[in-house]
């Protein structure tokens, strides 16, 4: 990495209360986001990728216990900020885009006004005209045609892909350093998904904003992210450059995930299915959380008894596997 990190998570651990007990949802999540990069977080449902994003902004359910060595952002530790200080970061310096744009948009307010409002709430002295100018510039940047007139319409008059672009424009309007985008294209058709990903890439190129792209879709990751954080059962199992990850993964889970996709095989060949299912967070195995499903030929007693930490391999690749230095063969 050449650029300095704009955001860095160190040892983020999150417990959520379910019934009478606390369950550990995130375990020691650690990674950096460099200025102006698109970094992907991949994992399956329940792996903790969305909770990681929500922890950064501390948009957590009640009775959540967040402990973190540090969530470093511009010299400050977000984990230690008071609510009033945190509000100056949320939506202004770190924007958020969720999967369903209608959770963000108010159905009875014109789209343009909602973006104006996002700007004026952080720029109290800005007039209406200035806010609208800013909103229109962002709508144009994300590829909304005829922005001036469309801004006066209501969300129901916009298609799903257009709404998602409006939400991205809203996240960008305060010139944030980072955008957290949680499954922003999952609900969209392929041709529309491509347009929304274009909007995110244009924001990175023209505004220099870093994008944390959370998705279960490795195809999306392979096309837009420069680095990838792979999560499993609430922990990071591998961090790698996108090319390295796809060509030479250092964790059996990432390797299996990449090879379980139909696109990675010739037609009709059996796919690499990962047997079983992820462990319950309330009942994690003592050793490696992936050990019960792992098909690596190196798997040993150590995997069952001792939990591997995310550490560099001999050639400097980060993996949470005891056998990170061995080549990862994928067993079909």
């Amino acid at each position, binding site marked *: 990495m050449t650029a300095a990190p704009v955001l860095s998570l160190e040892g983020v651990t999150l417990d959520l209360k379910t019934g009478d007990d606390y369950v550990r949802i995130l375990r020691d999540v650690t990674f950096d986001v460099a200025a102006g990069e698109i970094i992907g977080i991949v994992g*399956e*449902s329940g792996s903790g990728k969305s909770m990681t994003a929500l922890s950064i902004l501390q948009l957590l359910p009640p009775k959540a216990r967040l402990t973190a060595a540090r969530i470093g952002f511009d010299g400050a530790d977000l984990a230690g900020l008071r609510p009033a200080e945190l509000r100056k970061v949320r939506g202004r310096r770190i924007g958020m885009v969720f999967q369903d744009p209608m959770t963000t948009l108010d159905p009875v307010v014109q789209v343009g006004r909602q973006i104006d409002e996002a700007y004026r709430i952080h720029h109290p002295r800005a007039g209406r005209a200035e806010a609208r100018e800013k909103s229109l510039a962002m709508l144009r940047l994300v590829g909304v045609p005829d922005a001036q007139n469309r801004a006066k319409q209501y969300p129901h008059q916009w*298609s799903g*892909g257009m709404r998602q672009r409006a939400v991205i424009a809203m996240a960008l309007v305060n010139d944030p350093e980072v955008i957290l985008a949680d499954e922003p294209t999952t609900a969209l*058709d*392929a*041709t*529309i*998904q*491509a*347009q929304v990903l274009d909007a995110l890439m244009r924001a990175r190129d023209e505004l220099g904003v870093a994008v944390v792209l959370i998705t*279960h*879709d*490795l*195809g*999306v990751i*392979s*096309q837009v992210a420069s680095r990838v954080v792979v999560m499993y059962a609430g922990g990071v199992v591998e961090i790698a450059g*996108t*090319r390295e990850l*796809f*060509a030479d993964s250092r964790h059996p889970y990432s390797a*299996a*995930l990449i090879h*379980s*996709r*139909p*696109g*990675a*095989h010739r*037609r*009709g*060949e*059996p*796919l*690499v*299915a*990962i*047997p079983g*299912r992820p462990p319950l967070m309330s009942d994690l195995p003592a050793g490696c959380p992936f050990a019960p499903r792992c098909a690596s030929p190196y798997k040993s007693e150590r995997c069952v008894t001792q939990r591997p930490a995310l550490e560099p391999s001999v050639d400097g690749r980060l993996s949470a596997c005891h056998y990170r230095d061995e080549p990862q063969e994928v067993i079909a």
Partner: protein
Amino acid sequence: MSELLRVDDLKVHFSQRGFSGRKRVIRAVDGVSLSIDTNEALGIIGESGCGKSTTGRAIVHLEDPTEGRISYRGADVTHPDAAARRAFNEKVQFVFQDPMSSLNPRMTVESIIAEPLRAFGAWDRVTGPARVVELLERVGLPAQFASRYPHEFSGGQRQRIGIARALALDPELLVLDEPVSALDVSVQAQVLNLLMDLRRQQGLAYIMISHDLDVIRHVTDRIAVMYLGVVVETGPADEVLDHPLHPYTAALVSATPPSSPDEHRERIRLQGELPSASNPPSGCRFRTRCWRATEVCAEVVPPLEPVGDGRSRACHHPLDLGMPTIRTESAA
């Protein structure tokens, strides 16, 4: 191989009353012709609103065809009487997208899988349970699951229970509507492997409806691409997806992320949005978004014409066969 099912000029229209009380006709499926042979796998792809699910549902009589003809092994089953419909249902089964809502939460797995047997008088109290266990094993689930309830299972396991139920009557054809789109990739691979095995071992044929090009390419031989209620192109899966003839197919393929970061697709950016199915464009339905459209496209509906090698396309200005959709960059 012989022809199993044939659909000729199928139309499914829905009436809808708007706010003004005026009746609108939604032409969800508007003249679709398809056929499938024994032991063949046919894929139907397209984006939301193209009519692919309605086509599948009409084939199994979950929607009433407005016009057209459906025949099974040569016999007309478009509007079957009760007896003919029972006989058809025994041979053709449907698998739903959402394994959460398609299994009754208050029934045990055994009674879910036994239900079609009971409905067709094939349930025997002595041999029945053994038959359920056999079906469970065929879809890769252990026998002791029979006495449990759907909520105890993961999405992939539930989907396999749905497939076991569909197999109970030894059907000849399965119609699967987005069977893996609700599943995580690693689990998706388990279900796709199962479908390929069933076809090999049992001589089953299936029609798979999906928006996921990689999934469809992997498990089907032949595909039909739909746009706004009509089939725009059909042919062998690899040929259609690697060398599309119809501009819409090319745009759809180009918007789908390739499987590796070393591959890049020449992006075709479609203009505009999907027109309404209640008021489709005259002539070719794709012409409002097509970069090759000319006057003739607005005036004459292009017929789905065979062009050799088992391929057909409905286009006045088809693409050249030699046009590749993918470009591989040598790894740095």
